[in-house]
């Protein structure tokens, strides 16, 4: 409770939360008040903004607002899914290794480091490129999650191994709790605030990663994402045509979400960390 | 002689969320002379830690002054805002050696940077080499290998050295008064002794002029302080010279504290220590009568109904109307 009140008094958090709320509103409110169809042509290609179509049309003559709303939803979906996968995977591996120590820890750490030195973006590009068919939004999210869990694992391992030597863990052991019980009851609760921050960061980087591979043309075939919009804009010469409305709004949205999540993360760090140190 | 510090009928309270007040310090008065070491004894929750905040002028809400004053060289420091107090009182006039001092150093910065911050916070224009020379001189003076220690990170130092560093940094600005708030609890006896020796050296060198030593170990105060104030439930219940309080305590709480001490003098089988049963009263309510009466082994029927005042008994101050 006190923490939440503290958070609400932190300017960084307020800015981040407002921006995040705004993007969420853009993603979910418009369909309620107007009819938007991201697959319906409404006019000529690259129509400049008008009163009817606030942000004009794309190269196929589809309303940009409709495309943006759909793209934003996909991007958020990819980000959250990738964030959940990366956080869960990294946490399980990190906590288990950190708590167990010894050979298991050495093996898991070696494994983590191995994945860590492979540049995940290149792996992502290769993976997406090798899959010609069925590159769905969900699959892309899974790819991203599976290539970015490594630094979560490293950070969590460090935390877990310092918790391991704490007295309450020793007491849990002589209470007869096994590894699973200790990890879930006596280590994870102490990491919750930290994991929440990790999750936010992973979500932000998930959104960015998706945008990058989509912009390169390796994004999902089945949906519209912000990165896809950029890719389309590049491929159909929006830049040389001066159709700024085709690439500028998605760019701004990507920047704003990532910025909002990063700011929320840093402001929370300032508040949670004194507790973590204690 | 005018005292260096004068605490005059000081009462402090915390405001609770629901508009109530917790009277953590109640009607506390004492003086501290130049060169003197005053011991303050009492169990946790007796108001010592709140009193320390008052002595440093740090009344940060929800802590507020009810009445009274804390005067250093005649100036009431409780009239200052916490910011002013931090700038003009902390470190120069009063400095505290924190509880659990070993973990109070930021682990990500070198000792010299931590120490330089203290000097800069009071003298923004001090230049790098002057600061460095000053740190070297001071750290050498307190028996540290200055060059090695200043360049180290706190975690690289052994516990005993870290303790010295904490004390060295808190006294960099030559404060008049050092408050040692249980600097020795949870330390082993040998480290504790070394800490106290260092504090004595600081006094002898004239780096600090007076000290307030707060602990729950009366046996320690026996060797450290010249006078002792015993606190219970926010009040001073006995105030006298160390000899008077320890060997001729007149307040039943003081005696109970002595009785609970384990005086295991190796070589002779120890007297059985007697715990003080029960807990101190909750300070968030109006209290009437003697506050120790419910736990007092010699309480009489009239104790519970009678507010106690400090009065002179046997040349020192006692808060108990039965004491003689």
């Amino acid at each position, binding site marked *: 409770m006190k923490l939440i009140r503290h958070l609400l008094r932190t300017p960084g958090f307020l800015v981040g939360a407002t921006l995040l709320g705004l993007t969420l509103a853009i993603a979910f409110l418009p369909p309620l008040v107007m009819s938007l169809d991201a697959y319906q042509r409404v006019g000529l290609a690259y129509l400049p903004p008008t009163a009817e179509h606030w942000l004009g049309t794309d190269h196929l003559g589809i309303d940009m607002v409709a495309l943006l709303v759909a793209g934003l939803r996909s991007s958020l979906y990819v980000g959250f899914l990738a964030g959940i996968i990366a956080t869960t995977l990294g946490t399980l591996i990190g906590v288990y290794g950190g708590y167990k120590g010894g050979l298991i820890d050495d093996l898991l750490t070696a494994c983590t480091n191995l994945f860590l030195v492979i540049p995940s973006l290149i792996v992502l590009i290769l993976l997406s490129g090798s899959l010609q068919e069925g590159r769905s939004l969900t699959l892309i999210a899974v790819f991203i999650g599976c290539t970015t869990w490594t630094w979560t694992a490293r950070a969590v391992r460090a935390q877990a191994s310092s918790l391991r030597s704490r007295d*309450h863990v*020793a007491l849990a052991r*002589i*209470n007869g709790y096994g590894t699973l019980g200790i990890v879930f009851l*006596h280590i994870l609760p102490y990491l919750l605030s930290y994991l929440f921050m990790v999750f936010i960061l992973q979500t932000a980087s998930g959104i960015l990663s998706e945008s990058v591979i989509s912009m390169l043309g390796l994004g999902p075939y089945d949906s519209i994402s912000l990165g896809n919009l950029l890719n389309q804009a590049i491929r159909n010469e929006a830049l040389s045509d001066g159709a700024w409305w085709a690439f500028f709004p998605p760019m701004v949205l990507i920047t704003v979400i990532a910025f909002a999540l990063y700011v929320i993360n840093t402001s929370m760090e300032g508040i949670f960390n004194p507790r973590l140190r204690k | 002689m005018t005292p260096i510090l004068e605490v005059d009928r000081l009462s402090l309270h915390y405001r609770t969320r629901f508009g109530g007040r917790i009277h953590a310090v109640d009607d506390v008065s004492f003086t501290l002379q130049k060169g003197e070491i005053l011991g303050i004894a009492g169990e946790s929750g007796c108001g010592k830690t709140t009193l320390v905040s008052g002595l440093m002028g740090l009344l940060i809400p929800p802590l507020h002054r009810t009445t009274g004053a804390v005067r250093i060289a005649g100036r009431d420091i409780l009239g200052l805002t916490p910011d002013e107090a931090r700038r003009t009182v902390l470190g120069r006039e009063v400095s505290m050696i924190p509880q659990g001092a070993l973990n109070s150093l930021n682990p990500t910065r070198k000792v010299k940077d931590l120490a330089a911050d203290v000097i800069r916070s009071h003298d923004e224009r001090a230049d790098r080499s002057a600061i460095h020379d000053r740190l070297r001189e001071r750290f050498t003076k307190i028996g540290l290998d200055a060059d090695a220690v200043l360049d180290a990170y706190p975690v690289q130092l052994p516990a005993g050295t870290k303790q010295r560093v904490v004390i060295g940094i808190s006294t960099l600005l030559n404060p008049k008064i050092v408050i040692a708030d249980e600097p020795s609890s949870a330390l*082993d*006896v040998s480290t504790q002794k070394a800490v106290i020796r260092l504090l004595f050296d600081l006094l002898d060198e004239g780096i600090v002029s007076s000290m307030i030593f707060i602990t729950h170990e009366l046996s320690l105060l026996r060797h450290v302080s010249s006078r002792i104030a015993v606190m219970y439930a926010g009040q001073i219940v006995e105030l006298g010279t160390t000899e008077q309080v320890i060997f001729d305590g007149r307040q039943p709480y003081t005696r109970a504290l002595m009785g*609970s001490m384990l005086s295991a003098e*190796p070589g002779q089988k120890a007297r059985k220590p007697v715990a003080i*049963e029960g807990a101190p009263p909750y300070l968030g309510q109006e209290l009437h009568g003697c506050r120790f009466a419910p736990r007092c082994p010699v309480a009489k029927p009239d104790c519970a109904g009678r507010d106690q005042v400090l009065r002179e008994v046997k040349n020192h101050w006692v808060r108990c109307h039965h004491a003689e």
Partner: protein
Amino acid sequence: MPSDSLCFEANHLSRAFGHGRRRRLAVNDATFTIREREIVSLVGQSGCGKTVLAKMLLRLEKPTSGQLLFRGRPIDAAADPREHWRQVQAVFQDPYAAFNQFFSIRSQLKAAFHLFPQRPSEREMEERVDQALLAVNIRPPDIEGKYPFELSGGQMQRMLLARIFILRPQVLIADEPTSMVDACSRAGILEYLMKLKEELQMTIVFVTHDIGLAYYVSDRIFILHEGQIVEQGTPDAVTQSPTSPVTRQLLDDIPSLHREWIGRAPRA
């Protein structure tokens, strides 16, 4: 009275931490015995290895070399360590750190029943928790629904002791149980320890940095320094005719009421 049968027997016991040049022996070649129903104190400065040694007796740390027998069998003879912990239990120095801050105290006391292959009925568990609380002078309603940070240090230390009253082990490892509590609560904690000893005929290994305290409670004292046991004997022998300079230093450093301590008079 201590009996003649052995509770613990250690032969050339060592425990090292770190590898290569950073390798350090926390316990170095310790050989000793502890008899049933004996109170033995492990005394030394911080970092002397007393806590690591205690953790080995608790089967929380594995020796790197040497042999440690519990009642004649290697301490890790049973595959399930819970068998050891049903007989050997512990109280720790900092009760706030020893309890999980996210769960109520009562639920954590009840967690001790995890040690038994067949847990007693819900009602019996509640009753045994209540009895244990009363044994340490805490009224059960006083801690109902409370979390560790809501109780005082003295109360929390008694919670650790209540856990022992629930489990009723035959051996207790007490790791500095009084160093974090007020002087006036310390006597109370010691009293409960003695009560446990009388009631359960317990063997107690008492870890402390205060040789005066060790003198007061124990049948025998081991003095530790840099991982080695430098002296062992009865309290009178160790305190009256210490053979090791380490012991003499420890004795010298206790602030006593009647003896010169720091070599200068209190200032006037």
